[in-house]
């Protein structure tokens, strides 16, 4: 048995994060991230939880995004904070080499949104954390299709291959993962970043026992 597996390292810290955005464009200054939520947790407990609403003067959220994410203008106005300060707090964890960043579909989406966030704060791209990432959407595909990292390529390459893997009727959304692991959730609250990351934390813990990482 491989004792180096993450499932046995109860002290390993994870940064589980999610962005909510104005639309689905991966590089548009109009696609501002307006909510950034993250939790820092080890296998047993949540150590820190943050739910930031990011203050932009010219937020243009598409009607579809408003509907899906349940965007509330008055709540946003009340809670929105300086995006640069929120980014600094988040990146304090993200660029910590002992932390594993985790998210659902981060390789295909949230990494780019983090880059937009940096760009809007006047910072250059920095994906130096990418090798440490775990994308629970990719892991869900690996579990469903029994695709192991048998060639012992790097974890990130394996996940990118899974990210590019498409199959009809293969459902790996967060909702599908929660259903698979019989984790209770409120469907109305899905796509709220804070709710999603807490759900994803539960999914991650199940996945680590389903596949060898």
């Amino acid at each position, binding site marked *: 048995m491989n004792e180096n597996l993450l499932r046995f390292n109860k002290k390993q810290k994870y940064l589980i994060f999610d962005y909510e955005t*104005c*639309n*689905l*464009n*991966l*590089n*548009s200054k109009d*696609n501002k991230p307006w909510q950034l939520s993250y939790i820092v947790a080890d296998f047993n407990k949540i150590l820190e939880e943050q739910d930031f609403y990011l203050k932009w003067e010219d937020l243009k959220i*598409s009607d*579809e995004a408003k509907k899906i994410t349940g965007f509330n203008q008055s709540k946003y106005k009340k809670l929105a904070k300086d995006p640069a300060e929120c980014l600094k707090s988040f990146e304090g964890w993200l660029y910590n080499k002992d932390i594993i960043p985790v998210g659902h579909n981060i*390789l*295909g989406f949230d*990494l*780019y949104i983090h*880059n937009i966030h940096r760009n809007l704060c006047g910072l*250059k*791209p920095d*994906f*130096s954390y*990418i*090798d440490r990432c775990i994308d629970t959407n990719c892991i869900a595909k690996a579990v469903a299709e029994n*695709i192991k990292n048998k*060639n012992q*390529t*790097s974890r*990130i*390459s394996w996940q*990118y*291959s899974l*990210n*590019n*893997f498409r199959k009809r009727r293969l459902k790996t959304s967060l909702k599908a993962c929660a259903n698979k692991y019989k984790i209770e959730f409120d469907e109305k609250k899905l796509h709220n970043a804070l709710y999603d990351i807490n759900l994803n934390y539960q999914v991650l813990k199940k996945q680590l026992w389903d596949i060898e990482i």
Partner: protein
Amino acid sequence: MIPLFKSDYSIGKSILKITSKANSKVDSVFEIAKEEGLTTATMVEDCLTGFLSATRASKNYGIDLIFGLRLTCCDSRSKKEAQDCHKIIIFAKNDEGCKLLNKIFSKAFELGGTSIEINDLKKLWQESALLMAIPFYDSFIYNNLFKFSQCMPLFSFTKPIFLEEDNMLPFDSIIKDAIHQYCKKNKFETLKTKSIYYKNRSDFEAFQTYKCICNRGSWQGKTVSLEKPNLDHCGSREFCIESWRECK
């Protein structure tokens, strides 16, 4: 760092024309090359249809042309669905090379095909007339890294050069590391390049719009738009001459 221009003859890949009138709103490869003071314009196209226009423009502008054809190469045509297909670029070194490019292109697309078998390429190959380059994206290294491919093509008939790029995509560093490792082991050379699909970063929205249109404007029956372009990993606006100028 060498800028590798692509024109809209490569459908869905670039919004640059080959030529345009000075002060026109349309951006073109040779106007950009002239503005940047380039003595040579290196083009990489997905087909040969723009070759004549490019040759004429080269003469009119007094800018040398290096023309490369990017196409899919497979170990075996019968297995073209399999994981052994990858992109290569073939540059013509001289007039003879241009004639050979035409033969290679014809061979690749005969019988409705879209790729060239490596043995066919080997038969047509002339080292004095052609140069093979391995592109940064969609090469066998890229596919092995990101698409579960296990392809190790045998380039015994030539010595390819491996193109390196940095477009600030999250996975660029992973590809670059793999290329360096492979080239060190196999004693191949690398060359720093940048693919150019539009003039400035501010043209990225136009580029995305064009790609959406070329993707037939819908995805799984849903209309695509700039808010929902459904373009995987289309998250960099660095494929432009503005970016090249800053890091050349």
